[in-house]
């Protein structure tokens, strides 16, 4: 290896480091609001399906929200995990977890949690819309462009389809 290559070997990682340091705050922070929560909430005016939560789950969810706002995503997911131990089939908790995973850029798990939330959830209304919007963003980041578009379409259908007969 000559001196030049050595120098390059040193410089390239440094440059990369500099680039990454200069990048603006990850857009994902905003994405969760602009692409998932806000549109889902706007569309859903009138169509609301809330599951009843037990007080322990409520307390843990509140703690998770505080942690999330403070940017403590690991802590937030810790609270949600505890809540999921109490209510493993709570679609709200699963979707909340999906949104935390999305912010952590763990797209595969974001997708998995959102899919599960949709499947056991009401499959209609705001949470349904958040499910599919999360799936869409996750798929996009997993390079599944057409899947992302499909998911986007499904999200808009959350407001006009009735939940399936059980």
């Amino acid at each position, binding site marked *: 290896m000559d001196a030049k290559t050595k120098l390059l070997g040193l410089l390239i990682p440094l440059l990369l480091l500099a680039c990454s340091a200069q990048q603006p705050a990850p857009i994902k922070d905003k994405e969760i609001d602009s692409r998932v929560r806000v549109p889902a909430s706007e569309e859903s005016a009138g169509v609301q399906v809330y599951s009843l939560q*037990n*007080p*322990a789950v*409520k*307390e*843990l969810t509140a703690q998770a929200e505080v942690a999330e706002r403070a940017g403590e995503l*690991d*802590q937030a*997911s*810790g*609270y949600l*995990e*505890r809540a*999921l*131990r*109490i209510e*493993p*089939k709570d679609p709200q908790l699963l979707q909340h*977890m999906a949104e935390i995973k999305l912010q952590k850029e763990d797209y595969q*798990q974001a997708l*998995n949690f959102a*899919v*599960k939330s*949709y*499947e*056991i959830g009401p*499959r209609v209304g705001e949470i349904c819309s958040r499910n599919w919007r999360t799936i869409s963003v996750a798929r996009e980041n997993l390079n599944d462009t057409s899947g992302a578009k499909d998911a986007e379409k499904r999200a808009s259908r959350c407001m006009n389809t009735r939940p*399936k*007969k*059980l």
Partner: protein
Amino acid sequence: MLLVGVGIGLGVPWVIWLDIQVRDEFEGRVWDVPSRVYARPLSLYSGKPLSKNSLLLELKASGYRKVPQASSPGTYAVSGNSFDINRRAFMFEDGSEPANRFRLQLSGNMIKTLSAVSGSENTGLVRLDPAEIASIYPLHDEDRTLVSLKDVPELLVTGLQAVEDRQFKHHHGVAFRSIARAFVANIKARKAVQGGSTLTQQLVKNYFLSSERTLARKVNEAIMAVLLELHYDKVQILEAYVNEVFLGQQGKHAIHGFGRASEFYFDRPLQDLEPQEIALLIGMVRGASLYNPRRNPQRARQRRDQVLDIFGITDLLTEDEVKKARSRPLGVTATPRSGGSRYPAFVDLVRRQLRRDYQASDLSSEGLKIFTTLAPSEQEYAQRAVSSGLEDLKQRGLPADLQGALVLADVASGEVRALVGDRVAGRTGFNRALDARRQVGSVIKPLVYLLALEHVDDYTLVTRVNDEPISLRQADGNLWSPENYDHKSHGEIPLMDALVHSYNQATVQVGLNVGVANLIRKVGQLGVSAEIPAVPASLLGAVELTPIEVTQIYQSLAAGGYSVPLRSVTAVLTPQGELLSRYPLRFMPLENREAVALLNFALTRVVEEGTAKALHGLLGNDTLIAGKTGTTNEKRDSWFVGYTRDRVAVSWVGLDDNRPASVTGSNAAMRVWAGLFRNLPFEAVDLRMPDGANFVWVDLQQQALTHPSCEDAVQIPFVEGSEPRHSTNCLQDQDSKNRKSLWRKLFGRKD
């Protein structure tokens, strides 16, 4: 001159190297603080299902004392169903919480209210500080109970020197006089009867355990002993020796140190031992296996008495004391106690998962806090279910030496709540839950049907399959002709019935269609890597799996196709409370989850009307449960897998040497399973169908859609698009009636 030069040239680095080696061992091991292993903290909130008995077990496991007034942390008061609990301050995996006193009211096996004692504020959620279930060295297959020299009985300290090394206080690591004496004695006896090793040399030998007895080795040991004495004082060396010396073997776990040996042989702390018991342990230093008091009691007793005599000669004991001690029995317990853990089988799993998932460099840190998923009350119930369940089977005429294993996990999170590997509580050694690789029999069949149901165009739950005699040419040229359990063939039957009644011939027919190779692949997809022979007999469970592997397979099914690796560890913290790493909840959705949902429905029918229909009677309730029995050739193995909405458990019963044991899935393992679930709160299986599958009213005989009011109408789930195309006449009649009634409604005319 040259020789001296070469000698120094080679010798000095050699000694330096030995010095580094021996100091590394000494510093690295003696002062290690073990890692503490905790159970899961019990979450308390109003509405939580919890029996009084379970709460008492949890409090006991967490070391809470019952008092009249719970005024100090770590105590509780109870009156009827009201508890006043003073929770200790504790550093949980996600942060510290101060002490907290609260009241808890139980009602009908549920927490009715939870409230803070001071003030009227309602507390939504309280965690009990978790039970400490073991202290371990994650990287070593050994358990130790460390003792400091000041806690060691005087007689052990002096007696050890009297027997093994009388010059200990004076020598510098090697005692040439002893070596000379041993040399003479050995020559006289023409064999090695005496060792001249000092305690320091023995310590070195223990560090680099090897039975090799070469001269070079002896010389190395002697040099290292001298080096140790240069660096450390006698107290440090003796303390290290007392904690290091090898005193037995249990399975692959070595028993090191007198503290641990005292628990292992006497189930008592070292401080409580009597002279003859101390003598026995000191005697074993010379040969832990040769003088093993459980295996060679006579030889052990001779050796013990010999040691007692030395105590007498050296005035450590009076003549009377020696006489009295000699008259006493050995006093060892029949079964060894495990290394400081009440739940050795579970701790074994923890150790293995730590080593699999964590860096060795992380695990070698001192004093880690390891947070696990164990639920002490559920573990207690599980062990009792196995211990008393097998005792009960003996009363019913089954072999007295039956063994069992039981694994209980949370469906959604895959967290292992209880693990039993032996019928005797606390016994270590062979951990059947993890290591008993046994044929699974019909427990494999659901996977065959799952594969079938994934082929939506070919199979639904009502598709007719053939339960007819079948003969296949095997690789060795012989014919294989599986029979059904009742030695009958049942002809053309709905696929679901073949599974519900566990018919072998129909399963082979279906299995050959879906392919053995696909079955093997499916087991892999469900998270189990096991060698499965690519032969048709595998379709009927001539497949060897361990109970924990079977649990892993069924977790995926029970969770509706959301597969999670079973886990026993949730987090590891440094002693300062820094998170070393967490195992976050992650899952993997399987494809074709509609097929899984259909299968789950069929497995509830196994319990409702099939091979497991005795289960409701055993449990004394009729909550919807999914399950599958398994029996192997000549009734060698009994399996039962059952799951509810929230829990999945696998039970195995059989004989260790694989003799025929007269056990079937329902006569043995299912009883043990029921023995556990009788004590647990659990929820009915959730049969809500995922997107793409629906319940439909059908007539099984006619394989046709029907109306709920028609005769033989049953509700069966189908993957969308695979519902029967035909309708029963009854449905057609109903439809025309409905049309007519609509006509009437619209036009109000009578026909």
